């Protein structure tokens, strides 16, 4: 299966592992990830105000590129995913917004057909669940993570607003737990798995972010987890910096490890 891939700025710099292991695992699972040409930063957060137009154009450009190549748009970063999925929904349902955006886009050098939210947008985890299937992943696992107790941290952006994201049950999600099971490990359920880490407020009120993040990592540890997995670079940063006593890693790293593709074969040969 071929998909359009939007990596996002953090995956090219501070969260390279999130990107690299996603690509290696996709290859092992038979998914071809074609990086969108000249993609632009999504802006990190979706601004819900209806009169905020220009800052959403980068997402629309990526969505148009995916539509024109006839493939769904896939993201790995939960922030990019949230912004692009919400922008796509606004293009589909808010006529006034779509009209203004398409007017902007018509000024581009080589304008494309007007866009109205036609592209399917998936998070990598949704692709694993709905397209690959956890049964198939289970079969592809070469190094089962037997006995490992792992806490999934969803945070906010994969799940909310549920009306738009439709990722999983926002109050009792199971996707990442089933993912952990497919890799042979044991998922740990704890109350803070869908609560906020503090997010961008770390820049404005670091104490608040610390308080929120600590409650997440302590909750996971108190329920017996030996590590936390996340899809979000900022969640990872906040959890680690606030002093999580257990390691925090990206879900793609866990997947690559279980699939036996964590080490780059080409790099070993050199």
């Amino acid at each position: 299966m071929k998909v359009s891939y939007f990596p996002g700025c953090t995956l090219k710099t501070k969260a390279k592992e999130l990107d690299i292991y996603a690509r290696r695992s996709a290859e092992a699972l038979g998914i071809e990830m074609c990086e969108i040409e000249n993609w632009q930063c999504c802006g990190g957060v979706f601004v819900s105000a209806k009169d905020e137009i220009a800052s959403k154009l980068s997402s629309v450009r990526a969505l148009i590129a995916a539509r024109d190549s006839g493939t769904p748009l896939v993201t790995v970063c939960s922030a990019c995913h949230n912004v692009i999925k919400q922008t796509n929904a606004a293009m589909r349902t808010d006529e006034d917004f779509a009209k203004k955006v398409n007017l902007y886009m018509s000024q581009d050098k080589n304008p494309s057909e007007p866009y109205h939210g036609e592209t399917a947008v998936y998070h990598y985890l949704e692709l694993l669940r709905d397209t690959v299937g956890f049964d198939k992943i289970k079969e592809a696992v070469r190094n089962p993570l037997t006995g490992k107790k792992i806490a999934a941290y969803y945070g906010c952006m994969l799940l909310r607003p549920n009306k738009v994201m439709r990722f999983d049950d926002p109050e009792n999600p199971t996707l990442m737990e089933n993912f952990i099971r497919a890799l042979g490990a044991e998922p740990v359920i704890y109350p803070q798995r869908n609560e906020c880490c503090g997010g961008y407020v770390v820049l404005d009120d670091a104490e608040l972010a610390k308080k929120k993040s600590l409650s997440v990592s302590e909750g996971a540890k108190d329920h017996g987890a030996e590590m936390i997995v996340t899809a979000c670079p900022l969640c990872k940063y906040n959890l680690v910096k606030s002093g999580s006593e257990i390691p925090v890693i990206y879900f793609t790293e866990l997947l690559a490890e279980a699939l036996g593709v964590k080490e780059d074969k080409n790099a070993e040969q050199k």
Partner: protein
Amino acid sequence: MQNKNELVREQVLRMSGVNPRKCMRCGKCSATCPSYDEMEYHPHQFVYMVENGDIETLMNSPSVYKCLSCFACVDRCPRDVEPAKLIEALRLCVIREKDKNHMTADDIPSLIDEDMPQQALVSAMRKYSK
């Protein structure tokens, strides 16, 4: 001529698409808010103060910067009021005023370390500056 309270109130309702009159005052938004302890005015107060046109009080409160945009209040509201969208619109009305950026690019170097993801910087700029 309309006073500032009325003008901004209309603008906030238009930008957010929120109808505060749907609120039945159950307080679930504030009960679930991760920033509750840090706020002078809480999500349910935002809703009824906008309804009553008490806009400038909210605009002058640091509470507008405490919302984490986690959307817990939006998803858990039984009446689909979407308080976070109201708070976002109010914050934008503040920072869009002249010289009212809450954070600028010049503030950034002293706030970051080498592990800070780019995502945090672009998000903060989008939330705290025009």
